[in-house]
């Protein structure tokens, strides 16, 4: 979930922004180091793709809808730093033109969604993939699920530090909602990656930065 402006206090906003904007510049440095012009349109279109994915609502039984994050999915294709960079831009533009999230809370939202999804997700996946290479699909599902759960825990911590909620009382409803979203995200990531593997496997061999 995206935190709007006004729900985090100054210290949380400052700390998360210092971290996320610092990491954004580190990612840009990493990307530009190996940058070839070919990659810019790819990053741009992937950013538009992530944005579209986050905007489209998918119907769930019972009349509710859910939207996907796609952060882990995109990092599996483009790499952790490119993934973080484009997810950050997508979150920023969402806050700007759609009102999903906030401008000052961009640090917190990108930490919860982009950092956990792209960077943590990618490195954990690589670690487990090397350890148990025959369970790739299972790792994609589990890590996709866990990135959402980690993001929701960070969200709870940020709101608790800002004095807006009680951690113990909010833990269950937030974890419950994100467990459902995590399972959906996991199924989505596994299905979409295996679809790419089947239809256009060269996309998965794109340089990962």
């Amino acid at each position, binding site marked *: 979930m995206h935190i709007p*402006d006004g*729900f985090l206090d100054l210290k949380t906003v400052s700390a998360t922004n210092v971290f996320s904007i610092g990491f954004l510049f580190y990612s840009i440095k990493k990307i530009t180091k190996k940058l070839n012009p070919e990659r810019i349109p790819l990053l741009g*279109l992937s950013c538009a793709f992530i*944005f579209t994915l986050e905007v489209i609502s*998918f119907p769930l039984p019972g009349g509710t809808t859910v939207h996907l994050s796609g952060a882990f999915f995109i990092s599996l294709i483009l790499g952790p730093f490119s993934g973080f*960079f484009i997810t950050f831009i997508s979150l920023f533009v969402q806050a700007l033109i759609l*009102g999903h999230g906030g401008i000052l809370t961009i640090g917190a939202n990108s930490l919860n969604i982009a950092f956990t999804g792209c960077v943590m997700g990618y490195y954990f996946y690589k670690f487990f993939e090397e350890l148990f290479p025959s369970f790739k699909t299972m790792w994609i599902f589990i890590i996709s699920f866990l990135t959402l759960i980690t993001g929701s825990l960070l969200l709870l911590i940020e709101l608790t530090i800002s004095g807006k909620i009680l951690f113990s009382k909010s833990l269950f409803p937030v974890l419950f909602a994100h467990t459902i979203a995590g399972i959906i995200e996991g199924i989505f990531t596994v299905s*979409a990656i295996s679809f790419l593997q089947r239809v256009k496997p060269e996309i998965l061999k794109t340089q990962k930065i």
Partner: protein
Amino acid sequence: MKHHFIDDFAYKKGFLQRVDTGLKVILLILLLLCVLVIPEKVLFYIPFIILTFLFLIFSKIPFIYFLKRILIIFPFLLVLFSLSIFKENGLRIFLFSFLKSLISISFVFLFVMTTKMTALSEFIKKLPAGFLISDIFSFLYRYFFLLQDEFEKMKRAMISKGKNPKLKDYALLSGNLFIRSYERSERVLKAMISRGWKIK
């Protein structure tokens, strides 16, 4: 599909439309910071609400249209409300956060509604490492509406063939959309190079 381009009002002649983009960015950040740190007393919020109305009037933005746009945050606020009420004094905390959120989003929307996206992209280009951010930002704004339309077309085609899309089908549609984005990026690159584009 019909899209609402948020910078439509940027082409009107109004007060905020005339202000330089860089100055507006600084003003926006300062206002958001002020809203963030103001104490929880109703009196402190009134000047910000008046300022929002003044900006709306002098920038010639219809109030109803503006209201419809800011209503978008209410579902998020509802979730945060359901979490806040468990806390002691939770309702009061939520109401002030809600007020802060509403004023902040009003300022953000006032900013984007009165700023041309091209001007914003030009401004971003001047920031440190701005060339990459500005390029990606421009790509996003250029292709997002297109990809959304493409997704809707694919979904409609699936439904017209008698298949009601389930989660797995949505994943396939998204995978297909990514392939189309990937292939489009290759065509766009060729078009950019043929027009003399070079990386700065």
